[in-house]
């Protein structure tokens, strides 16, 4: 769905409408209850209506879990911001009912090109094999992503967004927290069984609790310019320049966005004055010089939005603090090279929603939430490692580091090995929770030699026959899914398990290393948690219990 002018609310129809719309503050019944001295109790309160908080809230609501989202503002973001949404994020958003809208509006891309000086040194294809519903990435301004998520959230009765609700205190209680919330009508208190902070890199919740995110701040500044250029004949690719003639000594990154808008990131160096650099008069000549180089001609353009930013690679030591959980930028931060910020945050939401819902339903012990923290802390480490390495290549910290960087780029023109060393961002891939306690390891005799092993997200594949033409579209929206290859699924009448019968040959079988009889068990977040050559109902039940954090019930 692209914006539908017949049914969509007026605010969701175009970029200006979305960025300018002011969501109405509405008084909540909880404020009346608090005034009478009996604060309401809500099972889950999410703080922050950004891509992560909204994804989490939608996922919870789709699982039948009531959820309140508090946002201290009443507007969506402006400018491109996160921009690159990865294949796994799109697959998660498909499950949340917004993937089609995102992809209809977004610019899909798989190819990247790297230039050194004037010359192209390297091109890569992030999705070299056909047969995937979603591309490696789409480019989409963050406000569109937020708008489609809000539009979806408004369809769900179990989900309530409260704009202009600023949390100003968090008191821990035996089995929850008491929040103090400031609104335009004054302050109220609200109790929550679980509080999830998705409130961004400067997380106010983190500050209120006296917690910190620690890591490395990079001494560099970058300018983002969103420029609108009509009729710019330019492919949907990621272009990255090291040391281009139009911006000597620094790097430049170019992405195409919807609405004829181009996103350009100029590295400025640490000594640049952000106040000077964000002035249109400073930006215009930079953009014009880039266009002349990239397109071979000067073109008229309009400057839509600009920002100067710095970044840090950091994370909180623990993502769980009792009944308070941290997700997205609040929990971890990375450099933008690799598109690992918003994408990893949406994976946090994907990981947490089914676990919280299971614990609140009484299907899983509180300890299942510990696995959210451990799985996503490990994922954050992986993202920070990749992001730090990219940043060290893009912004060398010493003369010798720059010497080797330039040596690599010089060799990359003629030598394939050096292209593998060029690091303009290792682009976001979903994390595999290989060490997770929720996994049931492969039986040694089963001899799996490939495919998605325990902990990996299920790889998509095209399907023939009736039903959805893509594997991931057939997985359970609510619970566990068993992929059963070339076997009679009638034997799998396990409660809470949906069985997807698949042929033992073809792309799905190949991508899951399946033979006749192979079965692959997927968690509710589509991650593999067990697989067998010769599955039994008892083994599947045991694996489901393990994935729900209930190993004590396993014989």
């Amino acid at each position: 769905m692209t914006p539908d002018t017949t049914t969509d609310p007026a605010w969701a129809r175009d970029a200006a409408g979305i960025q300018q719309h002011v969501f109405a503050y509405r008084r909540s019944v909880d404020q009346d209850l608090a005034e009478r001295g009996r604060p309401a109790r809500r099972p889950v309160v999410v703080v922050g209506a950004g891509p992560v908080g909204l994804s989490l809230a939608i996922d919870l609501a789709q699982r039948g879990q009531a959820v309140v989202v508090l946002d201290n503002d009443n507007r969506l973001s402006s400018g491109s911001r996160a921009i690159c949404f990865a294949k796994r994020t799109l697959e998660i958003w498909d499950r949340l009912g917004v993937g089609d809208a995102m992809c209809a509006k977004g610019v899909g891309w798989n190819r990247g090109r790297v230039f050194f000086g004037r010359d192209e040194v390297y091109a890569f294809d992030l999705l070299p094999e056909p047969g995937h519903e979603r591309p490696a990435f789409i480019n989409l301004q963050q406000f569109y992503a937020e708008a489609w998520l809000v539009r979806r959230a408004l369809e769900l009765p179990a989900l309530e967004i409260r704009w202009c609700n600023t949390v100003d205190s968090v008191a821990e209680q035996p089995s929850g927290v008491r929040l103090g919330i400031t609104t335009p009508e004054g302050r109220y208190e609200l109790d929550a069984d679980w509080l999830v902070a998705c409130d961004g890199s400067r997380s106010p919740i983190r500050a209120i609790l006296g917690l910190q995110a620690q890591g490395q701040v990079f001494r560099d500044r970058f300018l983002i310019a969103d420029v609108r250029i009509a009729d710019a004949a330019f492919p949907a690719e990621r272009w990255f320049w090291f040391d281009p003639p139009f911006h000597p000594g620094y790097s430049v990154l170019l992405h195409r966005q919807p609405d004829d808008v181009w996103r350009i990131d100029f590295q400025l160096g640490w000594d640049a004055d952000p106040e000077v650099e964000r002035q249109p008069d400073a930006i215009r000549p930079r953009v014009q010089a880039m266009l002349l180089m990239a397109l071979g001609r000067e073109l008229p353009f309009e400057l839509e939005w600009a920002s100067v930013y710095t970044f840090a690679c950091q994370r909180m030591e623990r993502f769980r603090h009792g009944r308070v959980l941290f997700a997205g930028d609040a929990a971890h931060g990375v450099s933008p090279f690799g598109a690992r910020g918003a994408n990893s945050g949406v994976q946090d939401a994907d990981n947490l929603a089914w676990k919280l819902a299971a614990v609140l339903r009484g299907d899983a012990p509180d300890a299942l939430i510990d696995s959210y923290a451990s799985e996503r802390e490990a994922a954050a480490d992986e993202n920070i490692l990749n992001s730090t390495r990219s940043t060290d290549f893009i912004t060398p910290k010493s003369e010798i580091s720059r010497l080797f960087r330039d040596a690599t780029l010089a060799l990359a023109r003629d030598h394939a090995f050096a292209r593998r060393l060029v690091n303009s961002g290792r682009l976001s891939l979903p994390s595999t929770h290989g060490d997770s306690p929720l996994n049931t390891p492969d039986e040694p005799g089963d001899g799996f030699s490939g495919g998605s092993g325990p902990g990996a997200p299920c790889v998509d594949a095209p399907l023939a026959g009736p039903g959805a033409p893509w594997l991931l579209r057939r997985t359970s929206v609510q619970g566990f899914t068993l992929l059963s290859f070339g076997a009679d699924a009638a034997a799998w009448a396990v409660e809470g398990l949906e069985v997807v019968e698949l042929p033992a040959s073809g792309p799905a079988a190949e991508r899951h290393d399946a033979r006749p009889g192979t079965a692959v068990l997927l968690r509710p977040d589509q991650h593999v948690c067990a697989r067998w050559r010769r599955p039994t109902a008892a083994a599947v039940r045991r694996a489901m219990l393990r994935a729900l954090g209930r190993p004590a019930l396993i014989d």
Partner: protein
Amino acid sequence: MTLNTAANLWNADAFYEALIETHRGLSTEQSHALNARLVLLLANHIGERDALVQALAAARAAGVPTQEPKP
């Protein structure tokens, strides 16, 4: 594979001469850049993790002055 630090060059003197000759006419800065490219080319040729890690450590260690002999 461990790093081979026994004599292994096809012709030690000829190699050394070729190495110096490769740098002829370059500024110190250009020579440093050439050396960096050379390191990357040779590292890729070796490829194997243990040998490379040992080579990095051996190169670093050789730059540390030996201790004065005790009287």
